[in-house]
């Protein structure tokens, strides 16, 4: 692998920037020096030994306009964090077994890398003249899936796949989504795996409403859910999809779609943030805020069964939703859901994120569960 300027080694002292204490929800200017990861050795791989890996991404503003993004990464219980400066068009995804997939575009090429947070290094995965808008890694850790748009026209180019170890060239896995006036131009494409890891949800959102294509990456089957009453995806299990309604804010209806017959079940008419988790029997449940205040929580099965309350966080932390909403994520821990200040991962360090155990509601610091 050729070492690029972007990958040049930085000293250890630069690595631990303690950016969490500095980071606000929007970052003005770039006061601290950005971390540039050293190249990792060998072929790219996931499954490192760093538990509780997390990231958060925020815009960097100059004169009120986005000039780039700052990606902060860390591991639960580790005070040291690392902050990378990315281009204005950039993304992060994961974590995937201690790694974070990072994409950034310089106006002529999109570059993809995989950062191993524990090893403080990165593999350069790909560079494309297409714009790679977002990407993910298959649960088996072998393949990178990328959503691309055309650099000049911004037309959807579909979802592409390539081997994580670089042994194969990118090939198209999923065609561009056809235009549909009910949804308008696509603003954001989001890739999310089903709970069992067998299906990939490719969510294409217009300004408010979203379409979801559920793809079996192995068999190639694609199922389209295209109802303008549906908004952002909360999660997907084998037979149901949960999404907010097509709202411009919260509270918003929470809807469960039976993928067998397309029937819809209204789980809550005015829900706040929501995530999928598991109950004590290992069944999929939705944990969601009741209303937008965040001071009431509810757990309900994806089929509407057994709704019951979950006590709110006594210190005012909010449920941290998926990456599309919270612009951050941590390694998932089955049966636990994350709470943080303002519903996001750490900001100013004054309030630490906690994990709540869905079956019994107990709360522990993020680092304890992750270990």
């Amino acid at each position: 692998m050729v070492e690029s300027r972007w990958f040049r080694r930085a000293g250890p002292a630069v690595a631990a920037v303690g950016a969490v204490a500095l980071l606000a929800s929007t970052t003005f200017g770039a006061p601290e020096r950005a971390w540039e990861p050293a190249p990792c050795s060998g072929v790219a791989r996931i499954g490192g030994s760093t538990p509780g890996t997390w990231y958060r991404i925020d815009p960097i503003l100059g004169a009120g306009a986005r000039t780039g993004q700052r990606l902060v990464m860390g591991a639960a219980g580790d005070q040291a964090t690392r902050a990378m400066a990315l281009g204005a068009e950039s993304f992060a995804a994961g974590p995937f077994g201690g790694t974070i997939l990072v994409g950034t575009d310089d106006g002529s090429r999109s570059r993809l890398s995989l950062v191993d947070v524990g090893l403080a290094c990165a593999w350069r995965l790909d560079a494309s003249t297409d714009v790679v808008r977002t990407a993910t890694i298959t649960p088996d850790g072998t393949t990178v899936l990328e959503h691309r748009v055309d650099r000049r026209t911004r037309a959807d180019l579909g979802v592409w796949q390539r081997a994580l170890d670089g042994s194969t060239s990118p090939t198209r896995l999923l065609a561009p989504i056809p235009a549909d006036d009910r949804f308008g131009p696509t603003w954001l494409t989001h890739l999310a795996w089903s709970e069992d890891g067998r299906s990939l949800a490719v969510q294409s959102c217009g300004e408010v409403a979203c379409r979801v294509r559920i793809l079996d990456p192995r068999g190639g089957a694609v199922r389209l859910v295209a109802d303008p009453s549906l908004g952002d995806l909360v999660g997907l299990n084998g037979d149901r999809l949960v999404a907010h309604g097509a709202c411009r804010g919260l509270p918003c209806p929470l809807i469960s779609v039976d993928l067998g017959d397309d029937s819809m079940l209204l789980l809550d008419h005015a829900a706040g943030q929501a995530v999928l988790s598991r109950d004590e029997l290992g069944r999929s449940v939705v944990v969601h805020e009741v209303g937008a205040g965040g001071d009431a929580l509810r757990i309900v099965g994806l089929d509407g069964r057994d709704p019951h309350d979950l006590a709110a966080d006594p210190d005012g932390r909010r449920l941290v939703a998926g990456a599309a909403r919270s612009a951050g994520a941590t390694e998932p821990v089955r049966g636990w859901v994350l709470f943080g200040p303002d519903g996001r991962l750490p900001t100013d360090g004054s309030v630490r994120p906690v994990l709540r155990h869905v079956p019994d509601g107990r709360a522990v610091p993020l680092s304890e569960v992750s270990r």
Partner: protein
Amino acid sequence: MISTNMHVRRAASLLLMAALTVGLGAGTTTISAHSPDPVLGAEVFAQDARLLYDWRSGATPPAAFRTAINAAADDIKATRASRAAVFLHDVNGSSPIGYGTGTCGVNGIACFTRNAPTGFTMWFREQGRVYDWGTLKWCQMYSTAPNGCYDVETVALDEFGHVEGLGHHVNFADDSDYTDAVVQTYSRTKPRDGYDMHVLGVCDVATLQMRYDIPLASSPYSTCLDVATVLTLSRSSSSVAYGGSVTFTALLKVVSDTDYGRLSGNAVSGRSVRLQRRPPGTTTWTTVATMTPTSPTGSYVYSMRLYSSAEFRAVFSTPTTEGLRGDVSSVTSVSVGSCSTAPCPLSTGQ
């Protein structure tokens, strides 16, 4: 088919979110095009509540945004035509408005949370955010706004409308009524018609009026409404001597109907209510006078001397300038005694 395990109240059914009416269909009341905006959320703020907002710490919008957002707050106050909440910037405001990532999720350019009756939050995506289709441009961030930019004041007005409890307006298929509401599912960019609306649309106001009431009994009802009225007529006496005086009192009210929300049963004053008469047993009505508004609110009065028996009714014609539906009262009769003392003037229609 949607099934629900939640109890959806009748009051909400009129207005249930557009999100639910489009695709979830059965079991909800469908909002048709050019109706008042659907209602968002069951809870509302207090009438004329003052919602104080401030800029979110660490995520303060740029100056051009702040100016435009404050202007939108003024737009709400100036054009709400109802007792909806007003928004005021205050450094001690408890409702934060931020700029940047927030927790909008996949939503496009701005988002909100409403926590009626206590407060709200609002976020605006930052200038230069890149989407699949391209780069977000806000008009206020340029000295000469380029085509394709979004107007901050309009979008803020839309968000304030949501906070008040307005859902997205349901337009005609050709969007020809787009400017009847600023609270829209899809925002327009410069130079499309409506991209820079700085007033609430009539269908925004209609729902605000139903949820918060009109300011005064004499205030006009939004032309996006079609509110039925009921007009009653009473007289001071059912029989009078020849030349005796009778006072007619009409009472104009909005029909009592929960679908009208806070407008239900409202007294309606300051309108034109006409008194008409006809000889008993005939069919042709003649307007006698336009009745004079009086107290109590919604009452209209007219006194006259009668020289012949007659039937009377009051008429409130459907106005062209507001969303009230006219009504005609039931007929009431007054019998007049014979002239017993000369000279007896000929009946002059009175």
